[in-house]
């Protein structure tokens, strides 16, 4: 566990630098003096962070853990003490009354900024933001916001997925097996899962155009028993050689290891869980956002300037900000994977190219990348983006991408 934290810290440091240079990143040093008197800005010692969690803050893995880790890491980076300056109400179900009650508690404790990490908190966050105008509200995975003290944040996980897809595609070529499995919490019901699957599939196809991604839908965000069972089914019945996943536990990777095939994890580097199978994982560096948001909150003067300081009511970081990434490639990866991923990453970070566009990448076995104009088509044959067209909008990816691209098949 410590290893992961240390690694995330290192990554955070590294991308923190990148973030500073990023186009959308707020210039932390510019904001404060501009419109608010310095005295009104909460001094670092008085600054309090509040958070509403869906699971226990003492979790050691999973979604809540990833956010908690991000928040505490960011606080330490900013010189804040999580032991005294962080108040958390955890295990709050997606029930408006209970979320509002939790928020009241946090406001009562004097929190300056309150993060809500679960999608279902959306209405409560909106209402609370309207009531407590002197507190900043920031909602993860949501889509609501206002122009003053309420924003939302999410990330371009599909970009990291695309990179992981390249590693999976490379491995499938090496194995000579075109079947790739994907254990997903949900399928097309949620844009979050659909976009992740699509990003991964496009990454696979950039390397191996003949590959098919078979998706098994869990119907739940966490279900350890079926996470394992579905992976086994994908390996045994569909002959999959690489197993990717969009679920909390490392069960699919462990199943891949047991079956002697390979896999791409999610959320954290799962190489320690499945050392012989794991290639790389699409990961979130939540601390990147939390640091950005806390800096903005400390420097924006009054709460109603928060959204203005952030520059956008919907933070949507990607590889460029270091918000998402792939974990270090394991030794299991095929030759040329590292070079290919580096090359594509550079293309995305520079803003030259994005995943859901009318241009597809063709990656040769040696890792050279070629851009080719081609329409983006869903697996029913409908054209989503015409050849040469720009990437679909963020709102589509977070909201209405309720289809699979060609090459994805529901298993």
């Amino acid at each position, binding site marked *: 566990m410590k290893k992961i934290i240390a690694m995330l810290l290192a990554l955070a440091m590294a991308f923190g630098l990148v973030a500073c240079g990023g186009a959308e990143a707020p210039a932390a040093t510019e904001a404060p003096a501009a419109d608010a008197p310095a005295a009104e800005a909460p001094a670092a010692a008085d600054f309090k962070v509040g958070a509403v969690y869906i699971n226990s803050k003492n979790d050691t893995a999973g979604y809540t853990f990833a956010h908690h880790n991000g928040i505490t890491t960011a606080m330490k980076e900013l010189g804040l003490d999580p032991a005294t300056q962080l*108040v958390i109400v*955890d295990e709050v179900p997606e029930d408006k009354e209970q979320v509002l009650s939790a928020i009241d*508690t946090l406001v009562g404790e004097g929190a300056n900024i309150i993060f809500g990490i679960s999608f279902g908190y959306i209405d409560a966050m909106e209402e609370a933001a309207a009531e407590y105008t002197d507190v900043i509200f920031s909602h993860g995975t949501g889509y609501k916001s206002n122009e003053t003290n309420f924003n939302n944040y999410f990330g371009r996980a599909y970009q990291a997925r695309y990179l992981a897809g390249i590693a999976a595609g490379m491995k499938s070529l090496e194995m000579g097996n075109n079947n790739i499995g994907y254990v997903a919490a949900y399928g097309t019901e949620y844009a979050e899962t659909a976009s992740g699957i699509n990003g991964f599939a496009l990454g696979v196809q950039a390397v191996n155009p003949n590959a098919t991604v078979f998706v098994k839908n869990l119907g739940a965000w966490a279900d350890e028993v079926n996470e394992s069972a579905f992976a086994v089914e994908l390996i045994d019945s569909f002959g999959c050689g690489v197993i990717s996943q969009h679920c909390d536990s490392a069960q699919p990777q462990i199943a891949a290891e047991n079956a002697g095939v390979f896999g791409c994890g999610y959320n954290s580097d799962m190489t320690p869980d499945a050392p012989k199978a794991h290639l790389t994982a699409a990961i979130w560096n939540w601390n990147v956002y939390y640091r950005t948001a806390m800096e903005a909150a400390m420097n924006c003067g009054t709460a109603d300037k928060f959204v203005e300081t952030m520059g956008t009511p919907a933070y949507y970081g990607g590889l460029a900000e270091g918000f998402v990434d792939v974990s270090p490639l394991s030794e299991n990866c095929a030759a040329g994977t590292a070079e290919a991923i580096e090359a594509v990453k550079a293309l995305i970070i520079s803003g030259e190219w994005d995943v859901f566009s009318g241009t597809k990448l063709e990656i040769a076995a040696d890792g050279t990348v070629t851009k080719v104009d081609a329409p983006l088509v869903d697996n029913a044959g409908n054209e989503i983006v015409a050849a040469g067209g720009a990437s679909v909008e963020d709102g589509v990816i977070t909201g209405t991408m309720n289809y699979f691209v060609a090459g994805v098949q529901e298993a």
Partner: protein
Amino acid sequence: MGFHIVKRDNCPLWKKCCLYLGAVVLALLLGAVLLISLGVDPIAYYTRMFTMGTVGNKIAYKVWINYLKELVPLALVSVALSLAFKMRFWNIGGEGQFILGAISAAFVAFKAGGVLPNGVTLLLMCLAAMITAGLYGLFVAALKVKFGTNETLMTLMLNYVALYILVFLGEAKADWNFFLDAESARPVFASFAKIVSFPGIPMGGKFTLNICVILTVLIGILVYVYLRFTKHGYEISVVGDSAGTAHYAGMKVNRIVLRTVFLSAALIGLAAAFKVGTAGILSTAITDDVGWTGIIVAWLSQLNTAVIFAVSALICVLHYGSTVAAATFAQVDSSFANMLQGVILFLVLAADFYTRFKIVSDKKGGN
């Protein structure tokens, strides 16, 4: 050396109080040991817990509003359950009845809200919730009366039926499903808080007393009178005490069972209407476990309506207070708070056992 258990005839009130108090103190001491081992100052923790974080809180009035929001459904559900329990009908289907009541109330809110005057809508919400929940309970009672089925099992299983209906409504994105927010691409329950909700009465300052609180207290008094002084109440105690005797006295036992279970479930439905009517939205966690906690409250109160209010008030302090306390101590999460509540309840139930029985060690056996 052995021991045996002997029934106590009559435990004086002061002794009972001492036993209960002792149980709470013992639980807190146990909790304190755990807290110290986690590196938390138990006195600071307990102070926060019992003051529910109101001390030094700039929005302390919110604490009371939220506290009452938690108290109303719990007290009302416990009172409702006590009706059935008094008759020895083990209705553990409070959760399911609550959920169906909540869905019906929301249904009325969506369909009538904004169309009819608010007062009428609220009244209809209450009625719909009461009838639906009541019928859900009546169904089990009818099966028991007709076929002698076990109501404990039936009500328990129907809890899950109701829960999955609610989960289905919360996940089925479709044109017909007006329970969901049409704007959200992801399925999420729609709010009707802006259309219709139970009004609060300003009490000076920012504190407003929701009308549901007053109604709940009123219903509590009515149920007390109903059980204590009316013919129906008398029938309930006789049927509960001995169905054979009730039958012998010429009571229509089946009718009494059906009527009482309906009433019990209907009041649970009313609690759900209050909850939904204040929250203005459904959720899969809408019950907040009142169907379960209510059983404990009713039991601890020995089905005494006045005591039910006191016990639910205390349990809400415990519940709300531990959440607040857990928020400020990094080492303590809600699971710990729940565990501490569990320990307190367990020991209080143990104390309850000691009020009814005592343990005597064998002085000299045959050896």
